């Protein structure tokens, strides 16, 4: 049985962004390019989902089950070729110049095809986000240039964002918890830099990464939150090793590694956040990525529901199709309703990112002007890197960024993102389970991919802060101040 026969969802030929989000029609009047490009990003996501991801979903799940270190480099190359990883890079530098709205329109489709594969190639960007959050121009420019080069050469370039430690998961993400965290890793100040020793746990792409961004404490005598810094180093650095890859329940195409640091030296220049500011850095990234994980939940739920609709339209029960049954239609509508409502919030978040968060930087006058006047050759040159390195420029740009993305903005996004993250991932769990109640035991057969989505969904309730931690966060942001501390 060929599962996908209805022209629906991932298999519909027309963009349906405006159908799903009718209020964008109003926006299209004012900003036609903004909306049209998002529609194109959606269709690009859909095409990649159908042509590149769907044929590989189960193959990768099976292969990585047998061997968690398995990587499909051909698949990676194809994604690279289609610029799935460099969409957000300015067009003039070789990317697609995507806004946050474009990114969301694209990833919704990718997640609906497979959150495991998508998390593998997209969470890579979390590492890139780490650089943009700090916005030291020399770092950002170098990373953008390197990504574009890698893309052109068809090579991988991976980043891992590592905050979780064996002893500290929630403690590494929440400021209140971090006050009491017992770290499993420390960075010690030595001449010219830091020496890092210890362990990190559950690090996505930890084994594939070329660079690691790690939050690490520097002073065992003080509360962790006061000495947490952010460090950046290549994985070729002496003393870095991957201890093991986890055998996970789902999300198999995406590797999860335990990392060991044994006297890893990080020069001062690669300390992205001074000790004491690491938590802020983490928070700012989370303020973006939690929204992305909310979207992942939405895609996960959509993937499950679309497969179920395809299945139910083909299977016959007592002389009619399963999908003709009254209870099935009501259950499907109920899930559609949740997806629709969640989607509105997801895109609201994306558009807000464009207006208020890191995405607005390139839209802002100085950056926009620079991109406009500087020739492409200079944009990709080392002299630009050198120029950006000059301390006055670096400071000025960093200050400029922090004036655009203030602490209040960041906290605001953290709570919006928390709401989205919990709503999306709970929906993913719920829908992926419920569709199997509709299909019955037959839907559990591996080939339909629905049980895989059920396995995938569970992880999303845990990472980027457990859903409990995110609820606490949301409460603190929205209500905490109102009620005051006791």
């Amino acid at each position, binding site marked *: 049985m060929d599962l996908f026969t209805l022209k629906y969802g991932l298999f519909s030929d027309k963009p349906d962004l405006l159908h799903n989000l009718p209020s964008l029609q109003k926006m299209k009047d004012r900003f036609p390019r903004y909306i049209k490009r998002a529609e194109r990003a959606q269709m690009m996501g859909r095409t990649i989902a159908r042509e590149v991801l769907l044929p590989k979903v189960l193959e990768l799940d099976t292969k990585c089950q047998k061997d968690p270190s398995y990587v499909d480099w051909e698949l990676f190359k194809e994604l690279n070729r289609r610029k799935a990883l460099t969409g957000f890079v300015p067009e003039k530098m070789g990317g697609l110049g995507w806004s946050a709205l474009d990114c969301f329109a694209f990833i919704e489709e990718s997640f609906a095809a497979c959150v495991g594969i998508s998390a593998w190639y997209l969470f890579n960007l979390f590492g890139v986000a780490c650089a943009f959050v700090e916005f030291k121009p020399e770092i950002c420019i170098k990373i953008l240039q390197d990504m574009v080069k890698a893309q052109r050469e068809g090579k991988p370039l991976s980043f891992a964002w590592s905050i*979780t430690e064996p*002893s*500290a*998961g*929630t*403690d590494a993400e*929440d400021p*209140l*918890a971090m*006050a*009491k965290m*017992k770290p499993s890793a420390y960075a010690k100040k030595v001449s010219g830099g830091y020496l890092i020793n210890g362990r990190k*746990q*559950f690090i996505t792409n930890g084994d594939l990464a070329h660079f690691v961004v790690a939050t690490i404490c520097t002073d065992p005598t003080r509360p962790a939150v006061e000495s947490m810094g952010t460090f950046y180093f290549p994985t070729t650095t002496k003393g870095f090793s991957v201890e093991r890859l*986890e*055998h*996970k*329940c*789902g999300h198999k195409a995406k590797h999860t590694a335990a990392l060991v640091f044994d006297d890893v030296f990080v020069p001062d220049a690669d300390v992205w956040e001074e000790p004491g500011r690491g938590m802020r850095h983490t928070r700012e990234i989370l303020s973006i990525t939690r929204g992305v994980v909310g979207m992942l939940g939405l895609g996960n739920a959509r993937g499950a529901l679309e497969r179920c609709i395809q299945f139910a339209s083909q*299977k*016959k*029960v*007592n*002389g009619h199709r*399963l999908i003709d049954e009254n*209870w099935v239609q009501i*259950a499907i509508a109920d899930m559609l309703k949740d997806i629709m409502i969640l989607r509105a919030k997801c895109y609201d978040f994306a558009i807000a990112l464009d207006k208020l968060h890191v995405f607005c930087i390139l839209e802002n006058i100085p950056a926009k002007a620079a991109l406009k006047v500087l020739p492409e050759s200079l944009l990709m040159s080392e002299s630009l890197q050198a120029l950006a390195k000059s301390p006055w420029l670096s400071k000025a740009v960093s200050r400029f960024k922090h004036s655009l993305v203030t602490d209040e903005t960041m906290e605001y996004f953290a709570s919006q993102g928390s709401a989205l993250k919990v709503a999306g991932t709970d929906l993913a*769990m719920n829908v992926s*389970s419920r569709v*199997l*109640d*509709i299909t*019955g*035991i*037959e*839907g*559990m*057969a*591996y*080939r339909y991919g629905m*049980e*895989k989505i*059920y*396995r995938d969904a*569970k*992880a999303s*309730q*845990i*990472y980027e802060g*457990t*859903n*409990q931690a995110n609820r606490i966060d949301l409460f603190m942001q929205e209500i905490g101040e109102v009620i005051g501390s006791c």
Partner: protein
Amino acid sequence: MLTEDYKEILDVSRKFAAKEIGQHILDIDLEPSIEWTKALWMKSREVGFPGLVIPESHGGFSQTGLCAALVLDSLASECAGAASIFAHHYAACKCIMAGNTTQQKTYLPQFANSNAEDAVISTVVFLPSFEDNKLHFHEKKGRLVLSGKSELTANAFLARYFCVFLDEGNQGKDITCIVIDKNDPGVKIGDSAGFTGLKINPFAPVIFDEVTIERERFIGERGKGFEIMRSTEDLYHGLLAASAMGAARTAYRKARAYAAERYQYGTMIINHQEIQRMLGAMLMKLGIGTSGYIQAMAGESVELPFAEARSRFAKIFCTDSAVEIVIDAIQVHGGYGYMHDYGVEKIFRDVKVLHLLGGSSPRLHMQTIVETM
């Protein structure tokens, strides 16, 4: 409600499960093999499990459905896959016990594995959900033959005998029950459906390609097997309920223990009220679910309107609950719960299959009401 006899059997099955299953199961789950499962069955013969519900006169132990359920509860607390093998086998035993004396004499001693050299495992095939390639009889050269496919058959690679239910009238009423030998010409086993739960018991399609059905293969009269199916289903549902509770019990135990080991926010996570709420809800579901299936299997309903203890209800409640319990048990473990080594994610995969076996909850709810109309 549980007599000394039950307690003794439970003790035996707990020890058996811990020793023969618990110690190896996480490795086996990564690379399951039919040989390992068969060897487990052979060992289970030493403690008499295959013949548990079969009358002593036929080489069994004449135990009740309740006893079987309790045994499966304890097997499932180590591995729901192991329990599922016995659930299908006991259900098949129940079919044969509804047959005539000759049939009982022919099959039951084999099913009890009382003296056979090889493992003799049986299984049951209920009515399929969907219509593709439905099981049906037709005439061929004056013989009655069976054709069609049972898409997902438990014990498919283990079973020697299949007790098969067919619905000739397509109305769910004219039910026929037959017993088929794997070695009958025309019986073929397809490729595993690849369930990622209950992995030691791979489910697979069984194809019947013009299998000749002699008269002695009919259990009860042709077209009059509704009651047999109903009573088989009653036992089967009770066994699934018990298996779900057994599996969920372990998920709870692990979560409870982990919550007292793990520190976050500077305290054991069990000190967080939200963790207490989650664990409390698990324990409540385990309590009600377990007494629910025990009451149903003991046939002891409270005499109040709409207070019937039915094994179908127990199956729905226990498997719904087990799914919820395990999802939360993983959550309490945080990232560790999602990793194979901790053993909870296996239970998560297992119970979702149990949840759907014997009919998904919404379908069973509807059936309950249709029967009253």
